[in-house]
């Protein structure tokens, strides 16, 4: 294999860059999509959710009472509940819940009032449509009111027997977060950032990887460039650098876009409700560290995608090869998002999954230097092998002139 000529590599790179910047499809896939995807996605999700929640909160739910004729006092208490619209009993109440005609139904057991007087315990059933937000709101409203009623009865009974409230409530339980705020927000958003950097550094590389290999074959420029004195090593390296640049650009732009979206979202939420749950407390150092970890992975993606796409004769053929590869990347990246999947010595050697897992840790401010070193080094090795294979593939006539 001949030695690398940096000047020749840079000539190829500059030419590929010129062509790449003039391609409208590039502008869309590398710049516009990552920049606009997050603001649109996040604003869209937030506005849809808040509209849905607002509607559900504003609605006065229709609730049906089943039975309870022998408990007039209980019925009267129920009817006194504010913001509930009681509808007359109908035998098809189950269907009405499924059809969203009523939001919930409460079944009063037989002889309920008498049981209350005797001190016996019975069960009141609330029926609702699980997962349907308006029905859940209605059922919750009914439940809260029934609990209040229950507490009143307990208090009255204690009073009648002249006992203190601590008889039924000997101690209180309180849960409080002790983790630093960046770890709390990081645990939620962190895994997502690592995931997005990984996925986007692949999708960013995909289009130029095809364009510079199969695209060149299809347009008939492969033979032109192969007839020039440039060595195939320099040619493939120049092309690789462009694909790698595209991959990085997409990842950087998407993280900037995602970071700013979360930042503004956190601020607007904090300003409007004082709720700090969604605040971004991610440091720029963590984000930079995630990028450094993703660098060798981006090299790996660029080299592998180019190698595979080179086997194709046309752009379309290359797309059909590379689309299934998206799953190869998405599956380990998604696996790292699963709760309970934590870094272990074995997992530290699985490409993509290891980077995704370490990014999750880094974002929460945890730096396990041993794991970081192992993962960075192993991914560098995979990346180096991938570049080597790409160079070798470019020297195979059967691949370049496949017919």
């Amino acid at each position, binding site marked *: 294999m001949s030695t690398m000529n940096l000047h020749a590599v840079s000539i190829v790179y500059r030419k590929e860059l*010129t*062509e790449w910047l*003039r391609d409208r499809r590039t502008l869309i896939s590398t710049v516009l999509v990552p920049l606009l995807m997050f603001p649109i996605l996040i604003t869209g999700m937030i506005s849809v959710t808040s509209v849905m929640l607002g509607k559900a909160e504003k609605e006065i739910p229709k609730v049906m009472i089943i039975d309870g004729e022998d408990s007039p006092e209980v019925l009267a208490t129920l009817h006194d509940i504010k913001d509930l619209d009681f509808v007359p009993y109908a035998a098809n109440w189950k269907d009405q819940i499924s059809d969203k005609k009523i939001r919930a139904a409460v079944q009063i057991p037989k002889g309920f009032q008498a049981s209350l007087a005797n001190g016996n315990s019975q069960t009141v059933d609330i029926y609702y449509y699980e997962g349907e937000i308006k029905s859940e709101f209605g059922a919750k409203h009914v439940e809260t009111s029934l609990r209040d009623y229950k507490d009143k009865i307990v208090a009255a009974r204690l009073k009648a027997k002249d006992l203190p409230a601590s008889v039924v409530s000997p101690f209180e339980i309180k849960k409080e977060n002790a983790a630093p705020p960046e770890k709390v927000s990081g645990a939620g958003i962190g895994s997502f950032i690592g995931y997005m950097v990984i996925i986007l550094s692949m999708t960013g590389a995909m289009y130029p990887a095809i364009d510079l290999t199969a695209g060149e074959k299809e347009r008939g420029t492969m033979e032109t460039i192969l007839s*020039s004195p440039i060595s195939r090593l320099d040619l493939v390296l120049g092309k690789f650098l462009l694909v790698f640049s595209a991959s990085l650009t997409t990842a950087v732009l998407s993280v900037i876009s995602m970071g700013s979206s979360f930042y503004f979202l956190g601020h607007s939420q904090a300003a409007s409700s004082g709720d700090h749950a969604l605040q971004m407390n991610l440091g720029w150092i963590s984000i930079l560290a995630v990028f450094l970890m993703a660098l060798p992975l981006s090299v790996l993606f660029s080299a592998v995608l180019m190698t595979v796409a080179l086997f194709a004769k046309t752009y379309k053929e290359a797309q059909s090869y590379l689309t299934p590869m998206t799953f190869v990347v998405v599956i380990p990246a998604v696996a790292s998002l699963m709760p309970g999947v934590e870094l272990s010595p074995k997992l530290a050697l699985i490409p993509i999954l290891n980077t995704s897992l370490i990014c999750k840790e880094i974002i929460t401010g945890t730096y396990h230097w041993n794991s970081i070193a192992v993962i960075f080094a192993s991914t560098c090795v995979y990346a180096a092998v991938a570049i080597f294979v790409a160079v070798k593939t470019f020297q195979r006539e059967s691949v370049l002139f496949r017919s």
Partner: protein
Amino acid sequence: MIEARSLLKRFQDKKRGEIRAVDNVSFTCQPGKIYGLLGANGAGKTTTLRMLATILEPTDGTAIVCGYDVIDYPEKVRANVGFLSTATALYPRLTAQEMVEYFGRLNGLDEATLKKRIDDIFSRLDMNSFRDRRCDKLSTGMKQKTSIARTLVHDPPVMIFDEPTTGLDVMTARTIIGFISDCRAQGKTVIFSTHIMSEVERLCDSIGIIHGGKLLAEGTVAQLREKYAEHNLEEIIVQVVGPQFANAEA
């Protein structure tokens, strides 16, 4: 000068097994002369020329181009060769000038020499009106001129043309033929493949007839006419290829 020495190229085909696309082909092309490689489609012309241009590596045998062995010094060979075929397209998103500049730089020209060379070629080929137009916006004729400029930018002593006029209109084909003729006048070594007989008669100093990967006959047009007692070149080719063709069919 080009000297092909027992060039052999084998391919593996999934259906047909091993194929000898070029089988023990030897010939010599001299500076200031045009050598024509004649043959039907699939005869082995393109593979031979690709091996001379070091785009493909010979399975066996070798060739010496401008004193460099195609196997040992492929990059040196390419620096001395201008290669043009109907398959050598242009980069659509580069302008005509950028296309030629790119190949000038790849050939190691410094910026001053490159500029001078480009100005000269663009004036000579009457290309100044479209030098800043993107290649995907050029007409076929303009594209062909840009390709010629691309092959000429490093002023190579050897020119290889693989069916350069196939699929071109009459006027564009004339430009190419004129260009090939000019190359000879400049003392370059020229080899070109075609199956258009009028081009052969007009241009070639000597010809080689190739079929089934083998070089079956060689000589000047006059020598071949005398040997086969036939004036029509097409008939000569049929006579040369005929027995082989019959054998292959059988």
